[in-house]
């Protein structure tokens, strides 16, 4: 399990329920590495400001992470973490590698309003 203060997705069923039952979801799929930790930290700091968005992490090396690893939007990704933004159950945006808090905020404001 990832050592973050975010909520962790621990099964495919849980993932499906989360994106079905919430309008706006951001999921960071990674490891505890130097490119991933800043994204988790940024997400933690945004949780209070974006009450309309549910923030989760997902361990890249767990079997159920295939939902993100093998997603069409991630097929060319070559850098961790893979960060996905869901609106009404659909992935509307995905990024690869480290992102700044400012970049994340820009995406949240554009796609998950």
């Amino acid at each position, binding site marked *: 399990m990832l050592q973050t203060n975010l909520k962790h997705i621990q099964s495919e069923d849980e993932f499906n329920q989360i994106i079905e039952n919430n309008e706006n979801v951001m999921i960071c799929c*990674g490891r505890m590495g*130097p*490119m991933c930790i*800043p994204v988790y930290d940024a997400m933690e700091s945004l949780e209070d400001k974006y009450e309309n968005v549910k923030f989760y992490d997902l361990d890249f090396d767990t079997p159920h992470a295939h939902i993100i690893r093998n997603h069409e939007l991630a097929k*060319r990704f*070559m850098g961790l973490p893979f960060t996905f933004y869901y609106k009404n159950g659909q992935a509307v945006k995905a*990024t*690869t590698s*480290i992102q700044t*808090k400012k970049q994340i905020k820009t995406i949240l404001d554009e796609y998950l309003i």
Partner: protein
Amino acid sequence: MKAIHYDAIILGAGAAGLSAAIYLSRAKLKTLIINEGSIGGQMVLTHAIANYPGVLETSGRDISLIMKKQAKEFGADIESNVEITKLVLSDKEKLVEIDDDETFTADAVILATGGKPRKLGIPSESKFKGFGISYCATCDGDFYAGKDIVVVGGGNSALEEAVSLTKLVKSITIVHQFDNFQAHEYAIEQAKKNDKISFIMESEITEIIGKEDVTGIKVQNQKTNKEQIIKTDGVFIYIGYIPNTDKFKDVIKVNNRNEILTDENMKTNIDGVYAAGDVREKKFRQITTAVSDGTIAALNAIEYIQTTKK
């Protein structure tokens, strides 16, 4: 909104900033850390630390979290992952505004903003980040299994990461701008004796080639200006760090590499402003030296604050 006053504000939460916070808050001074990135700074880039005295082995992440816990338990406040939108250092009372929203003042400021990875500075670099350009072998190495890659740089990080990547990739070409390496002898020896690694010296990358993904690089020899194209599936970049001094280098004295100039007490050219860690001009950049800088800066800041309050 009224500014909140602290005895000391520390900009940065790497080894230097957190150490300074531990000393300041333990001296019962009202202390605030303001950090634009993640807690731990460049420490979190290190997976295994085996040369921190008194600790057999730890990770950069773990040691950062312990330092943060110590600082908080002694009473320091932390504002992390924020943007510094205004900074006034020249006045007697220093001022820091974050996120265009909250303002803090202090009697003393410690600049411990560290550094960020140096980039190649060619236009295609950001376009291919995560699509063939990487700055972390341990994070992204898996994606290049069985492929031909390039590692850029000649320091410890470049050579050690290249050797580590040979466990996964088919071949590595190390491109380095000088005719010799800056890494320690052991790292050079390990890289040179590895059959999967070849070297292109005295050369710089002038272009990253590819439509959607990286397919090659253009390399220019610094002596002859001759260019060659190397086919590659990915480029890992380890060309050092640049100091985070953009926000104050107009008022704080820096050298030609934009590193802050301090005296042995970590004092800058402005009264009540100190600098610590990788952001200042110095020869050795280690966690231990950052901790030392942070401690010295804090102890001198404590003296300054107590003197000016008399």
